[in-house]
């Protein structure tokens, strides 16, 4: 190890020289002005750092600064957002004016899988969003930070639940059964994003405040390096880290939130309900109570929340660090619902051995606690003439309740009596080693990334004996607890060779990745309680028990490589190849190969483009093609397996209950879903970079679709088997435009907009099927589906009857022989679309689909002196919603459906349609869900002249301030079927950020 010793002595020598040179100089004052090199305008809030220390200052409103240089310091580093940083050495002068150039912006770098690339050199469709562009307001899960910000990326929060789940679609859905969510890679660790009991959204463990950038890899040339997990796009999250040599900085960010319900449910008021009963079911009048209860009001509330984040970041020579702690507590507008999160984040990076060895350590931990509500549930239709409480009804906790199991339960009783909580602790950590081996081969380095992701927690529900449960489930009080442990470990090892030979730039990466996923789900149910004293803390009061455990494991082993080759930064080539091995497939299909190739041409670098250079500041054409995969299916579906029955599914032989074994259906030939995609894009900028844009066209064709299909009886062990069948195509265009609309000394205005069009179509399901597969279960009846997967149609097309309309455009009422054929049947109200003379299932037609044709977002950021105002508008066009709340509750007989036991309130639509019975399959309930929403608007003020490096910003944000839509339900953003979701709220956030 002589070499190490050499290095050590060299290092010591270096430090010695530094020390000597520094002792030559003494402490002195310095001041000056920082201006724009071109316009001469002062730069407000520019950072000035004394190199080698953690102290510095920022410029005031006139761009002036003043500070004291400690003994031994000579260099200043001046930085300003959007300008190239500059390092200047202070001579003997006491006034030093410095000019920064906007044109000399440092090469922007974007992260891609297993590496990074200069933005100008990127060949794929890659969009990076950094923290200053993130969405503001009430945000629990990090994906909401980029809602509406990236063309072709649809982030939908499908309910208003605090911390509730989101669905993310990048360029439409490529799959039916194998999942459509993108892969999340956090600091190099691909994470398991499956839901867990007791948590609302697995992504909630990341504090949005700790995130530095989001990078969305959209096309196959970018995602193919993630092979079998790249088909739905990849989102790479990089968390904030400390920078070597940077001054230490303490930042506090805190906010307080109030949220309110926006709309009431569209159900009848007490008075209207009484009138309706009188009209429809006069014989039931004696069932009416004397109270007037607004059940929706009884179960909802204005909610509050708070958010506190404290971070400390800094650096020393060769060392950077960041420590953060955060707390967020957010109530939901349905009573008792709540989510809480406490996070810690650590980053430590260190350059050793003459900067040949870089070590970067990230550690994140989050403790989340959730309290779950019972949903709006029965509050929609519970008889408004009944009281909330009935003190005489002690058996049911003093709540008003019906004595029959079929009757709905008092909605307030569930909210007040059932204690349903969840908690989880998740920690994600990784340590990266980068070792530069220039000594051996110039440009060669090795990287090792070791990571882990551990997540465990539980859901616990306590239902006391006083809850009206026994009539429904024959369990007199119950304790249910569901635990989970998920762990994953990762090892990535790869070599990188990066070197330029004249005009040739070469960047080669090749490596190996191993990731193992384990999960365990033990649970128990204890019921028939002797008392309610202990809640979930003791099962001793229980007399009956059921328990289960389930353990799963899967592993992914990969080899990957990438070559980036550039000629004169004019012609850029990228080729990637990944070979993935997964335990989810049988030995014959275990290994898959995922290649991609891309080419980019920076046209302005061409001689012939001289003329264009006056107009454009950037012009790049990109073409990429690649194959990616999807393997998000359960484990061992390829293997003949036996599952055992539980204690409740045994069978009697003689006097012994036998635990049975069942051979499960399987497809030995199961393999990856493969998506071949083509991307053609154009990056452009003009007005010296003041306007820029990206235009992309893509076509994605997914083959060997993993699909659960009906198989011929006798060919397998169940009616349906997960197998590779079918094809789906997504095709679309995306446009992003950015503009610096105004850029004057006091007033700045940045605008950024994006719009994306996507067309999805099922090309094949199997050779014979043209009928399609019904899906989209609704509330109302059992087994009723309103959507279909059919060849030639978009996935999840609605599948409904065409309702005949009367002269006023209203749907014909049921129960009348409109066509005078002597019988009352479906033909009276629905169109005989196939003309066979009768109306039955064959007359249903695929109509519209839940996915939008267009999604768009507009972000505006303005600043005037210390004030800033920003907002994000977002919307979609052509997305349809089946109004299930209306179809399930909007018919007159609903009042009296079980009138012998109880009365139901009805949806207001019943007063319009006058339907007597439910018309679940009427296209009347299909509505255009196009919308425009003001997601957030923020007004802030920066106090810049507080002295030193102190800065303070106060702000107010309003979330969900308005929603423009023709949809008649509460909110069209529900994922296609509007079925009693958690209502969204309007929130107001007040906060401040203090930096010291």
């Amino acid at each position, binding site marked *: 190890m002589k070499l190490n010793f050499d290095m050590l002595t060299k290092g010591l020598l270096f430090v010695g020289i530094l020390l000597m040179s520094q002792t030559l100089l003494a402490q002195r004052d310095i001041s000056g002005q920082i201006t724009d090199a071109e316009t001469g305008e002062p730069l407000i809030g520019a950072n000035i750092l004394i190199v080698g220390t953690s102290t510095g200052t920022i410029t005031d409103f006139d761009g002036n600064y003043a500070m004291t240089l400690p003994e031994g310091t000579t260099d200043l580093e001046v930085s300003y957002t959007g300008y190239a940083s500059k390092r200047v050495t202070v001579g003997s002068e006491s006034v030093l004016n410095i000019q920064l150039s906007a044109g000399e912006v440092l090469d922007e770098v974007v992260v891609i899988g297993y590496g990074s690339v200069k933005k100008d050199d990127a060949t794929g469709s890659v969009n990076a969003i950094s923290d200053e562009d993130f969405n503001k307001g009430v945000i629990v899960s990090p994906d909401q930070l980029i809602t509406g910000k990236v063309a072709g990326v649809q982030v939908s929060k499908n309910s208003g639940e605090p911390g509730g789940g989101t669905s993310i679609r990048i360029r439409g859905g490529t799959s039916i059964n194998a999942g459509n969510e993108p892969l999340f890679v956090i600091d190099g660790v691909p994470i398991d994003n499956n839901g867990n009991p007791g948590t609302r959204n697995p992504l909630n463990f990341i504090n949005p405040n700790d995130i530095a950038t989001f990078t969305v890899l959209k096309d196959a040339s970018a995602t193919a390096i993630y092979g079998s997990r790249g088909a739905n796009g990849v989102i790479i999250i990089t968390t904030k880290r400390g920078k070597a040599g940077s001054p230490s900085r303490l930042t506090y960010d805190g906010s307080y939130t109030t949220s309110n319900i926006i709309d009431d449910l569209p159900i009848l008021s007490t008075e209207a309900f009484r009138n309706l009963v009188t009209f429809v079911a006069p014989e039931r009048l004696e069932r009416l109570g004397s109270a007037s209860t607004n059940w929706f009001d009884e179960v909802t509330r204005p909610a509050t929340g708070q958010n506190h984040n404290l971070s400390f970041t800094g650096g020393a020579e060769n060392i950077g660090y960041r420590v953060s702690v955060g707390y967020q507590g957010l109530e939901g507008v349905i009573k008792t619902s709540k989510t809480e999160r406490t996070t810690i984040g650590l980053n430590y990076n260190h350059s050793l051995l003459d900067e040949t060895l870089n070590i970067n350590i990230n550690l994140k931990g989050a403790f989340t606690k959730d309290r779950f509500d019972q949903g709006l549930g029965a509050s929609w239709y519970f008889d408004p003439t009944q009281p909330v409480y009935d003190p005489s009804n002690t058996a049911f906790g003093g709540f008003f309740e019906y004595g029959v199991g079929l009757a709905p339960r008092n909605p307030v009783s569930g909210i007040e009596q059932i204690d349903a909580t969840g908690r989880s602790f998740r920690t994600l950590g990784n340590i990266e080693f980068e070792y530069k081996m220039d000594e051996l081969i110039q440009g060669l380095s090795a990287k090792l990334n070791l990571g882990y992701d551990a997540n465990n927690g539980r859901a616990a529900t306590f239902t006391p004996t006083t809850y009206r449960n026994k009539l429904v489930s024959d369990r007199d009080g119950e304790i249910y607890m569901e635990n989970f442990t998920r762990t994953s470990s990762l090892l990535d*090892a790869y070599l990188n060779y990066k070197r330029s030979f004249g005009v040739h730039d070469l960047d080669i990466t090749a490596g190996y990745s191993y990731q193992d996923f384990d999960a365990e789900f033990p649970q128990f149910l204890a019921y028939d309680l002797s008392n309610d004293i202990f809640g979930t803390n003791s099962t001793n009061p229980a007399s009956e028990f059921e328990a289960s455990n389930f353990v799963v494991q899967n592993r992914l082993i990969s080899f990957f490589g990438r070559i980036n080759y550039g000629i004169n930064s004019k012609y850029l080539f990228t080729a990637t190849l990944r070979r993935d091995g997964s335990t989810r497939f049988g030995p014959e299909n275990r290994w898959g190969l995922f290649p991609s190739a891309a080419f980019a041409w920076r046209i302005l670098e061409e001689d012939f483009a001289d003329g264009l250079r006056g107009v454009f500041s950037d012009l790049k054409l990109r073409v990429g093609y690649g194959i990616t995969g999807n393997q998000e299916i359960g484990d061992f579906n390829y293997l003949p397996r036996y599952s055992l029955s539980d204690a409740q599914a045994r*069978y*009697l*032989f003689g006097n012994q209950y036998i635990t049975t074994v069942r051979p499960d259906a399987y*497809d030995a030939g199961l393999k990856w879903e493969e998506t071949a995609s083509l991307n053609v894009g154009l990056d452009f900028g003009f007005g010296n970079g003041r306007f820029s844009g990206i235009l992309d066209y893509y076509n994605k064709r997914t083959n060997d679709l993993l699909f659960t299909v009906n198989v011929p009886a006798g060919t397998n062990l169940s009616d349906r088997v997960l197998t590779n069948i079918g094809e789906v195509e997504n095709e679309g265009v995306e446009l992003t435009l950015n503009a610096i609309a105004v850029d004057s000394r006091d007033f700045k205005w940045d605008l950024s907009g994006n719009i994306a069009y996507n067309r999805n179509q099922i090309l094949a399901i199997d050779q014979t099927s043209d009928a399609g597969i019904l899906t989209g279960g609704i509330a109302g009846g*059992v087994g009723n589906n309103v959507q279909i997967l059919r060849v030639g149609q978009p996935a999840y097309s609605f599948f409904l009857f065409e309702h005949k309309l009367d002269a006023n455009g209203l749907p014909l009422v049921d129960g009348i022989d409109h066509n005078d054929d002597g019988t009352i049947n479906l033909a009276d109200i629905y169109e005989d679309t196939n003309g066979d003379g009768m109306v039955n299932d064959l007359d249903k037609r695929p109509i519209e689909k839940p996915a939008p044709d267009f999604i768009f977002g507009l972000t505006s950021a303005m600043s005037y002196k210390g004030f800033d105002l920003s907002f994000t508008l977002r919307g979609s066009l052509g997305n349809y919603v089946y109004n299930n709340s209306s179809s399930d509750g909007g018919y007159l007989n609903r009042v009296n459906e079980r009138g012998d036991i109880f009365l139901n309130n009805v949806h207001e639509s019943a007063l319009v349609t006058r339907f007597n019975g439910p018309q679940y399959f009427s296209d009347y309930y299909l509505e255009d869900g196009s919308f425009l929403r003001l997601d957030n608007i923020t007004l802030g003020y920066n106090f810049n002249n507080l002295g030193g490096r102190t800065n303070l910003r106060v702000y107010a944000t309003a979330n969900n301030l308005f929603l423009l839509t023709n949809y008649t339900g509460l909110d069209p953003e529900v994922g296609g079927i509007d079925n009693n979701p958690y209502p969204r709220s309007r929130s107001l956030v007040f906060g401040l950020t203090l930096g010291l």
Partner: protein
Amino acid sequence: MNKLFKYGMVLALFAATACTDLDLSPKSTTTADVLFQDESAYRAFLARVYSGLAVTGQAGPAGAADISSLDEGFSNYLRQYWQFQELTTDEAVIAWGDEGLGDLHNHNWTDANQFVRAIYYRIFFQVSMANEFLRETTEEKLDSRGVSDATRGDIQAYRAEARFLRALSYWHGIDLLGNIPFYTEEQAIGSDAPRQATREEVFNFLDSELQAIESDIVAAGQNEYGRADRAALWMLQAKLYLNAEVYTGTDRYSDAVAATKKVIDSGIYSLEEDYDNLFLTDNDSSPELIFAIPFDGESTQTWGGMTYLIHAPVGGSMDPVDYGINGGWFGLRTTSALVDLFPSESDDIDDRANFYTDGQTKEINSISNFADGYAIVKFQNVSSEGEPGSDLDHGDADFPMFRLGDAYLMYAEAVLRGGSGGDLATAVGYINELRQRAYGDNTGNIAQADLDLDFILDERARELYWEAHRRTDLIRFNQFTENGVWPWKGNVKEGRTTEAFRNLLPIPASEILANPNLSQNQGY
């Protein structure tokens, strides 16, 4: 050298990490190699072939479903078999609005009907389970696993029972659907889609198959409760032969007489003293049961099966406590056509007339209104002593699939239809045994002259209503579609005749698409 060594180490470390082991084994499920090391697994597997009649998945009452084309609670074998045998007839109507459910009584089901799908896939799930059992218990497999002689002895009977269960489901298959896909253990998993066999082909297979296993199956009355014995096999033979004319065009009444005679003459079975006790939680001890599907409130739970049969008929002013349940489901009632077969609306004359009339109307104005039509109190979750079952959700009573009363009636019918080997006097005697039990004395007895086919059909309704026989009986008597009218048949209040093609159900649309070898039944 040092440099080489150092970087060599780095690269070696890289190479060392490159593990490529992808051979993981499932943890909470297992493979045949592991499972059958324990010889009791054969018994556990056989129990699963049986339990396909009772449960819907490997978790009770629902979970890890066997078939997934529809709601798991709907996918229960007995529930759907019962619904097609009863809801399509004069014996039952149901109030609920689940898609396609009303079509059963209306006689307007299509090949997209989810209940058609349910019974179809259930039948073939059973066939596939039995086939897989037979594949796993071949001599070669048992040899290779070194199975002990004692277990091999048991397995011989197990195999006969698996074949019996396969035959039972194939019988349901040809009875409900006519020409059906046919496959045996010879067709391995993943092989080509099976061909469609004619009703007659399958009938002939069943005829020879049942004879082939007769000697291997445990002797009548000698098997454990819950498992099929030789008498169950005779009952299945009797069912096949009695309906042979429907299935093949050729009658086999003499064979039907012979089969029922074997059951009756075995001397093992006798009539339950009190008719009502046949359908209560302690019916497992009844001397009349020949083959039953056992249910248990704690150990054999489902949302179909007995759970359905004890909850769905309860509603209106009926107090759930009286029936050992936590709440009625306000679903099933009967039509006046069944009521009118009895001498009175109460059980004061005929003990079998278990109608619940309080708050109910005899005639039905609206099927969806539970108060329209008399309710029926038959399957209950209480014992003959009035004690409630072990669980108020899931019932303890077992479903009597084959019982002696049915054997008596089949004997009489087969003789009446000209079957040799029996005589009318004996037949009348059997019928009068049933009627004496019902009337409590001989006031309901009939004379030989009273015994005709119309009487048999009516008596079968009186004795066996709601026991999943009615549709098959009506078809045998040509009263199901073109003839025979009862309230709301064909979706009109007074009832109407319907098209003859509805004597068969359609093969589900999903199956027609999946298996190109199949052709749809005429009319659909």
